[in-house]
Structures are given as C-alpha cells and as structure tokens.
C-alpha cells in the first residue's frame, strides 16, 4: 500500500515526526487560508513530480489557487493529479536523507542516511551514505544514531533532532508494517529546525489485516485491477493484447516470457492460484474478458488440480459474458482428456505443452486479425 505525501505526513505527525504546516485541496475553490508563502505540491503515487512541474511556489491565496488550478488534472507519468498539498515554504539551510527499508539478503531492516538529501538516493555516491542494519529482535540502538550524526557531520542541536526523528521513523516502520519509510529531503531550516520536507511510505499489502484503515486508500491500480483486488484475484494489466492466465506466480511469469519468445505479447498477468472450482475460474475469466484481449492463453500445470472443472469454468465464463474471444488452453491435471473435450465442444483450442499453447495463441491471433 502506497501513500500520498499528505497521508504519509499525517502518519508521520502521529509518531511525532515534525512536518511543515499544510492543507490539502481537490479543487482551487477549496483553498482559502494556505500557510503563506507556500509550495503547491501535486499528490501522486510516483516520484519525480518536481521535475515534471508538479511542485510550484505561491505567495498569496489568489496565486495559490491559480497555481493549484494548473497542477490539478495534470498528467505526471501516467497519473492524473487529483489533489494538491499546500505547504508552508521552508527556509532551507541543508537537505538530508533518512530512510528505513528492508534488506532482503540480510533479512534485516536497513537504515540509510546521507548529508546529500533532495536527490534520488540511488544517485548518491556510496561514500556519502550511512548504512546500518537494524536487527529486528534488538531494535535501533543509540550508538547507531550517534554514528549516523557523526557521519553526516551534524551540529549538536541538529544532530539531536535527527536522532529523535530516526527513532520515531523506526518505530513507525515497525508498527505500521512498512516496507519503506523515506524522508527525502529531511530539511534543516535556517532557524535550525529539522522537518520532514517530503514523506514516502509503503506499507506491506500482506499486513492489510492489521491496518484496515488503509484498505480504502487509492492505489496505483487500473479500475480492473481494483476490481480484481476486491475479489482477491492476483491480476495485473500489461501493455500487450493476449490475455494470459496461469496457476502460480512463477508459471504465469514464465508463460508471459514464453509467449514473448513465440512472438506474442501478454496483456494480462492473472494468477489463478490453486483453485479448480469452476465458479472461481469463471470469475477470473470474466475479469480477463473485460480486459478485451484478442486471444486468451490459459496455462495450468496442476498436480492435483482437476482439469475438467477448470474447463467448465472457462465455458461458464464465456457463456455468462456472451464472449466470442478465442481461448487457447493447456490444462495439465486430473481428467485432462475430459477437459480437452469440453474445450473442443465450445470451439476452443486445447494444447499439450506451454510452448505449443503460446505458439497457437499467436497463430490464432493472426488468424483472427
């Protein structure tokens, strides 16, 4: 789960991390009393909005409204700006970086800090980074924070604030089941205050059940992906035209790759999981049909999966949706022959192997086009 800046900042504030004063608006008319002078910031779930013209200054309420009307509705890397955040403009002395992420290889949280904030952390030279693993069972120890402020060369009154913010950010990281907490820039003002200039927060989808209040947040999903999410179906829309559905994430990825090698391009990633319940198969297929593929490529490798009931689900979905999209299906599992017969009876194309199925899907598409 990703958070827009203003939502992330509200959570930061809950943990006592200092944030600038700000108000949010969906329409220019809603802007009455912004903290002046202010920055008008596009609220989108992608980075790089500054460069894209999504962050601009304003010195009066009238100017704020006019700047907001420019930014609202803007397209930033495929995301439409639906909301702006008007935030107190900071007198910047220095920009730092502070973040917590998960190091997969070490299997521990990783604290990253740098005196070179305000730019993408990937572009900061390695010797300018402070990186320290935090053993989850031990927690963030004071010596780590002391070495952080040393490395960054911070004066005492600034260092104390940074240490405090790091402690609170780690608490947030753990309690909110975050994959990423990033403050970039962490601003040191001319007055010596340390404030979170930006806020990036990503919470683990698997922990949604512990944070039901976040379940309704807008995510970067297409309407069909949103529908799939609500139904508990793993579904991603891609930019090809062949609807790919398989069982298991690895096999679905491999099916897309094989299709590509055979000259086709996948338009969907749909992982059916371990089900052979015809109703669930039909539900997944209905979703797939809504994505308007030119051909559907179904690839099931099931040890104990019943191939015939999967085929019945396919048949049901095509009937319910009155769809005439061709289906190429490779279903390996119990009662394979019955499955093939069901598919042939409705004019569909059974295949023996995944390679053959991918090839056939490309041929059927060409024939249909």
């Amino acid at each position: 789960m990703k958070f827009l800046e203003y939502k992330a900042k509200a959570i930061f504030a809950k943990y006592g991390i200092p944030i600038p004063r700000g108000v949010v608006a969906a329409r220019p008319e809603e802007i009455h009393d912004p903290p002046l002078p202010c920055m008008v910031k596009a609220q989108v779930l992608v980075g790089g909005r500054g460069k894209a013209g999504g962050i601009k200054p304003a010195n009066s309420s009238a100017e704020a409204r006019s700047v907001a009307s420019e930014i609202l509705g803007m397209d930033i890397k495929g995301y439409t700006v639906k909301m702006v955040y008007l935030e107190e403009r900071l007198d910047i002395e220095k920009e730092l970086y502070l973040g917590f992420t998960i190091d997969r290889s070490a299997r521990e949280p990783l604290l990253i800090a740098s005196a070179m904030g305000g730019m993408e952390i990937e572009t900061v030279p390695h010797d300018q980074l402070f990186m320290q693993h935090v053993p989850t069972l031990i927690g963030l120890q004071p010596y780590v924070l002391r070495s952080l402020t040393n490395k960054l060369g911070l004066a005492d009154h600034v260092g104390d604030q940074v240490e405090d913010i790091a402690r609170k950010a780690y608490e947030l990281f753990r309690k909110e089941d975050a994959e990423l907490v990033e403050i970039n820039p962490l601003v040191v003002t001319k007055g010596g205050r340390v404030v979170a200039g930006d806020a990036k927060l990503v919470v683990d989808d698997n922990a949604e059940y512990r944070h039901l209040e976040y379940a309704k947040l807008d995510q970067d999903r297409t309407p069909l992906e949103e529908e799939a999410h609500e139904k508990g179906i793993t579904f991603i829309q891609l930019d090809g035209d062949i609807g790919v559905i398989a069982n298991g994430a690895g096999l679905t990825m491999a099916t897309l790759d094989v299709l590509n090698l055979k000259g086709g391009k996948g338009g969907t990633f749909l992982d059916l999981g371990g089900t052979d319940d015809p109703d669930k198969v039909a539900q997944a297929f209905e979703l797939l049909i809504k994505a308007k593929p030119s051909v559907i490529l179904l690839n099931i490798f099931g040890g104990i999966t019943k191939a015939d009931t999967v085929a019945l689900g396919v048949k049901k979905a095509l009937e319910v949706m009155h769809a005439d999209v061709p289906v190429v299906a490779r279903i390996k599992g119990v009662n394979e022959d019955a499955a093939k017969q069901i598919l042939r009876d409705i004019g569909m194309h059974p295949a023996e192997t995944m390679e053959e199925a991918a090839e056939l899907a490309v041929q059927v598409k060409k024939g249909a086009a």
Partner: protein
Amino acid sequence: MAVLLTKRSRVVVQGITGHQGQFHTRAMLDFGTKVVAGTSPGKAGTKVEGVPVFESVQQAVDKKRANASIIFVPAPYTKDAAIEAMEAGLKLVVIITERIPFHDTLEFIPYARTKGAVVIGPNCPGIITPGEAKLGIMPSHIFKAGDCGVISRSGTLTYEIVNAMTQAGFGQSTCVGIGGDPIIGTNTLEALELFQADRKTKRIVVVGEIGGTAEEEAAAYIKKNVTKPAVAYIAGRTAPPGKRMGHAGAIIQGNMGTAESKVKAFNDAGVPVADYPVDIAKLLAAT
C-alpha cells in the same frame, strides 16, 4: 544422503485439522513421510488420517519425538506457530502459508538462527526427497529419485520443470521450494551450500525469478565455491518494473532485480540459463 529431509525425519503438521493440513497429511503419508503428530488448538485427542493431534508442538516432541514441522496455519498465526516449533527444539520448519507480513518474518527468521533451526519458506511448496520423504504440497507423481538438486522460488513452475526433468530421465536428489517472499528462511545461496556438500547430488538446477539479488549472490557463490555443474531458469524476463508479479518478492525496483542482471550473473559464472522452462532438461543433458 539427501538435503535436510530423509525418511528418518519425524514430522509434526501444525494446523493439521484444516482443509489443507488434512489433505496434505494424507499425501505426505502416502509418499512415505513419517508424519507422527499434528497440532491444532482445542482438537487434542482426535486423529487426522490416523495421526494423533496434540495441543502443542512440545507434546508432539515429548510423546512422538517429532523433529521437523510443516506449518499450514493462517498467516496471522504463523509467527506464533513457527516460534512454538523452534522453542520445542525442532531444527527444520517448513512454512507453506502465504501472505505473512514481512515484519513477522523479520522476527522469526533471525530467531530461528539463534535456535539453530532451518526455516524453509514462507510461501513455498516445501521440500521433497524422492524415494524418502516429502514435507510439502507438491504433486508426488512427477518426481523421481536421482542426482539433481533443485532450488526454486516458485511452485507450479518448479513442477513444470521437474516434470520435464523426470521425463528426460533426470531424477532429483532433493527439491527445495525456497519460497516467493522477499524474506525467506533459506535463500538460494544457502540451499546451494547444502547441495554442494551433499554427496548424492551431482548436478544443481536453480529456478529463479525477478526481484532482489538472490540469484546474483548465488551466481557469485557458484563461481567461487561450487564444483558441480549447475543450470538455471529465470522467470519474469518480460515483467514490467515496479509491478509485483504475484509473488511478494517478484518485483523490479529501480534497476534492481531485473532478469537481465540475473541471466548475466549466471552466464558470468558459467551457468547456462534456459530460454524455455523445459529446456532445463536439455541443458542438463549437456552437463
């Protein structure tokens, strides 16, 4: 010899009374696994597929000398189940459950290390030593005893590849499904170490996918330490960046975790990478 699991392993099934637990207890017994006990809160004293159910893992250890566990309990209770197994002294804990919050995994996996326990998974099909035992959910009939060690982050894709291997006459010493999560108990490199040390394993198959740097680290390890021939497959060559491809761990972040980087790392280590999953069998024939 085989890796981690042999016919002497004495298994307790945590969450044995659930649909999955019950079904796979039967399948594991049929495969020859010594399933000696199950646990399920409030169901102690009953039996599932003839296997006695206990209140706790400790009782399964005390009464039935269980020394390995397989966990089927729902995600919110998995951390509890895993720690219970480790506290009872079990040294092998296989976690089938998917969708466990990372922050839970970040606690029980480091804890396992302090206890000297090996965790396989979470979000994995388990581990199987054909001819000896199965501690997992994979379809038994596609496996065949042999000398190829298989390491995989995926479930059904592994079955596809193993099936092709078996048909081409390449049996398996042990197949370890390490799991599709970003944080897993035994990673590709650690599974490689086990297979390199195992006398029965003559060849190694690595089935990787996009996301993280496990394959790159494994390739570097192979280059330096592995004397046995190895071949690989990488899923997700056409996956777009920034999208989680079904597995929580299968995501390209920035320029990290791409298939190109993994294929290149394997090639640099002299490990051929198959274009098609079934080509693994052909690559093995050439080793």
